[in-house]
């Protein structure tokens, strides 16, 4: 089963990074990074199928055709920002981690603006003038 393989890789990576940390602290971050990347690349095929499923569903509903790509983009940005922030925290760089998270929030907000505008327009239309 896939999950068992993933769990084993995660534990092996954690143990290796502890062993290496005692000899050479600089190498432990490399091991953590490679473990995380391999785990993600293992899971990506399943994520692809999920996203294709959502794409096919949103293709039918004509409203979400405009907003669905925004949701997918925001999902990607949130994931990458969180991924980098976690790696920076592991490496002990709290400041960089918080800045990356802040940048991620700002970019997500930036992408979400059109959606807010369209909602406000919709509300204005509904209100009786």
């Amino acid at each position, binding site marked *: 089963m896939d999950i068992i393989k993933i769990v084993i890789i995660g534990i092996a990576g954690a143990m290796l990074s502890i062993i290496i940390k005692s000899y050479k602290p600089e190498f432990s971050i*490399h*091991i953590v990074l490679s473990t995380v990347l391999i785990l993600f690349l293992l899971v990506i095929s399943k994520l692809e199928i999920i996203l294709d499923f959502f794409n096919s569903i949103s293709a039918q509903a004509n409203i979400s055709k405009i907003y669905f790509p925004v949701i997918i983009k925001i999902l990607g940005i949130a994931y990458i920002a969180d991924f980098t922030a976690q790696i920076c925290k592991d490496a002990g760089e709290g400041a960089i981690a918080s800045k990356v998270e802040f940048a991620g929030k700002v970019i997500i907000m930036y992408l979400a603006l059109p959606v807010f505008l369209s909602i406000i327009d919709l509300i204005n239309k509904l209100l009786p003038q």
Partner: protein
Amino acid sequence: MSIDVDLIFKIATIGILVSVLNQVLLRAGREEQAMMTTLAGIIVVLFIIIQLINNFFDTVKTMFQL
């Protein structure tokens, strides 16, 4: 680059090898060579990591349409 799991163990072996070589060279009194081997080890590991990160970012870019 394929997603091969033994990458983690490759990096771990390089790390241990470098630290052992470092100790040996330090005992032999050659600090510069010790420094060189550490740098060489880090550069080799960086090559591997950069390929992996490149593969990761390409996948994420195509998938999330970023």
